[in-house]
């Protein structure tokens, strides 16, 4: 007669999971998972349930206040400077405006009868860009400092600088061309 544990020992450490489910069982299960009715909201205890309506009321008040603010305060602060967004943005704005100012001064110095047409045209273009910028300042206020508006404002600065750079190059070119032609004439 064997001991009572002989069977336990026999079964010990054996893997009885030798059968495999059908090959498509995972797909079938995924299908079932998707088809079943959406899981009910987990039921919390009563305390949390009681808070739900209170929170809902508080949330609607908050929304109402935000809308009120939106309607009544934005008209007064619609225009926002880039500098108001953050100290870094203030630096950016200062940097770009100073670059634009010096470039403009440089161009004004180069002004001559030959280059006048180019410079005037550039100034007209610059004015358009500046009008765009004013619009963007308005947008910035309305959108609540939307990232895209900030990006557009910086691009606007860059465009202005690019324009000025191009004009400076053009003016220089015209001036050297003039000098060259003078030299040619004298020889």
């Amino acid at each position, binding site marked *: 007669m*064997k001991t009572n544990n002989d069977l336990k020992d026999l079964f010990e450490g054996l893997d009885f999971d*030798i059968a495999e489910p059908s090959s498509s069982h995972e797909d079938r299960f995924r299908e079932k998972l998707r088809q079943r009715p959406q899981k009910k909201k987990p039921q919390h205890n009563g305390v949390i349930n009681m808070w739900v309506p209170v929170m809902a009321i508080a949330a609607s008040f908050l929304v109402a206040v935000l809308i009120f603010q939106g309607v009544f305060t934005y008209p007064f602060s619609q225009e926002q400077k880039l500098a108001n967004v953050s100290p870094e943005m203030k630096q950016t704005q200062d940097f770009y405006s100073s670059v634009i100012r010096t470039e403009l001064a440089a161009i004004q110095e180069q002004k001559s009868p030959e280059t006048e047409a180019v410079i005037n045209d550039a100034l007209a273009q610059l004015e358009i860009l500046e009008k765009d910028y004013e619009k963007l300042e308005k947008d910035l206020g309305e959108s609540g400092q939307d990232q895209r508006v900030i990006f557009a404002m910086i691009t606007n600065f860059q465009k202005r600088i690019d324009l000025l750079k191009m004009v400076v190059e053009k003016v220089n070119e015209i001036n050297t061309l003039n000098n060259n032609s003078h030299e040619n004439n004298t020889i």
Partner: protein
Amino acid sequence: MTLTTTHIDELLEKCRRGDERAQMKIYKKYSKAMYNVALRIVKDSAEAEDIMQECFLKAFDKLETFEGTSTFGAWLKKIVVNHSIGIYNKNTRHTEVRYEDQFKHAADDSEGIASEEEEQNPKVKMILKTMESLKENYRVALTLHLIEGYDYEEICEILNITYANCRTTISRAKESLRTKLLSYEN
């Protein structure tokens, strides 16, 4: 070990939030074991697969009630076992003929996979075959006790029988299995 358990805990947390990918991961991890648990009880591959999948869905729905006092695998297995026993009882009660059918089915199955499985686990195969030749209630009780590893109290609860009844059944079943195993060996 801790690594895997935290991993499972994370997956379960995602499952609670209804993350389908996490649910599929849990399913992949446990489906084979759970399928085998069900199959050992109901003896029908299609039925076992249905039971296994239903139990997963049930488990995902009731995940809130899983407190982590046992491992998730053990918790899931208990669901599968209970469900399988429920189906098994229904089948045996309603159609007496099914008994014969199931045996035929089981035989077909074992022949189908015999070629590769027999070489890998001759011992397991032999034991399972011997178990199948036992009386049905012996087979189920012994499966729960020796393979799934439940103790008498748990088996009483699962099979809804008295403690004394459970003890006697298992002890007689063991005796029967011993004799059969011996005759197979000789």
